[in-house]
């Protein structure tokens, strides 16, 4: 064996050709995001997913790695989205108890909220001259990102834009929920929680849990129901309206 070390660029060529680099990059960026989130006392502005996306995007731009190349490696993480979506059945099952006796107001509110989400975002974006690609990204933005991306694929809009808009919506909802609820004089925790779960899915739900357990339970119920009903109704709505 020759003890000669390979030149650094050879290591680089080897690493960037294997899925390892993209995987390490993705996990390390997410870990950095989680650490920052803890550091800032779980402030919604320091959202770990947003930080991870920004870090990975900055690194692959800096090292000139095409997105397709990055995704080739990161697809192993991406694949688990479907599995994680199926696993959402467990928190929904646990939340079903909370539905008892409140099913009519909650479902009516969910339908009204879901319709408002699409109509307001698409309407405003159209009025302000956004094009079809951007508008398509708004269809499922209030649905939890893994399901939203599945919906986006079914209605042939960009899953990427949908995911980015969904994460942004979650962050905005988590930040704004307090002001909106106070402005309309909403005091009941379960109603506040449900509203943020419907509008701002997972990120809103974790915000709700950190404020009040009852709000959190109803937020996760709102998120879960919106995910399931959204997956059925949004493609139908898009098909009939578009």
């Amino acid at each position, binding site marked *: 064996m020759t003890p000669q070390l390979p030149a650094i660029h050879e290591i680089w060529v080897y690493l960037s050709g294997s899925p390892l680099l993209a995987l390490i990059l993705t996990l390390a960026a997410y870990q950095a995001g989680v650490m920052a989130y803890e550091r800032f006392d779980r402030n919604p502005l320091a959202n770990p997913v947003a930080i991870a996306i920004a870090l990975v995007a900055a690194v692959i731009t800096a090292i000139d790695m095409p997105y397709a190349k990055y995704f080739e490696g990161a697809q192993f993480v991406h694949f688990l989205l479907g599995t994680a979506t199926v696993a959402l059945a467990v928190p929904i099952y646990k939340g079903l108890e909370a539905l008892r006796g409140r099913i009519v107001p909650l479902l009516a509110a969910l339908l009204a909220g879901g319709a408002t989400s699409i109509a307001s975002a698409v309407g405003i974006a159209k009025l302000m001259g956004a094009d079809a690609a951007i508008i398509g990204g708004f269809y499922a933005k209030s649905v939890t990102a893994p399901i939203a991306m599945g919906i986006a694929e079914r209605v042939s809009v960009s899953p990427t834009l949908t995911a980015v808009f969904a994460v942004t919506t979650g962050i905005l909802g988590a930040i704004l929920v307090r002001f909106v609820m106070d402005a309309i004089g909403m005091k009941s925790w379960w109603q506040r929680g449900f509203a943020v779960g419907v509008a701002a899915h997972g990120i809103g739900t974790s915000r709700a849990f950190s404020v009040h357990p009852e709000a959190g339970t109803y937020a996760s119920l709102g998120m879960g129901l919106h995910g399931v009903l959204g*997956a059925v109704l949004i493609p139908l709505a898009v098909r009939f309206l578009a």
Partner: protein
Amino acid sequence: MIAGLVQILLFQGLGELVAKFFLPLIPGPVIGLVMLLAWLRIRGSVPASVDLVATAFSQHLGLLFVPAAVGVVMFWPHIRDHALAVAVALVASVVATMAVTALVVRALAKEDPP
């Protein structure tokens, strides 16, 4: 842990099959979710192994959509050109959605807020 993962993957596979042959408009994993939910209802409890896997996933759900969302680098110039429209639509829409949902649930709920 593995037992739970196997069961969840099984439901995912079932969901994909149903989606492919019967319900092409609905994402397969969502059909898998509904079938797993129905099975949990019939069973009356969550098996510990399934619970373990589901908890692990829900704690780090965010990690899983990083790869797709990084695709924003390809859309960046496009989003920048429409930055104002996107920002106004996102903020106004989330505020409206929360307000409408809360107002409807309050209007229809019988009990008084505690």
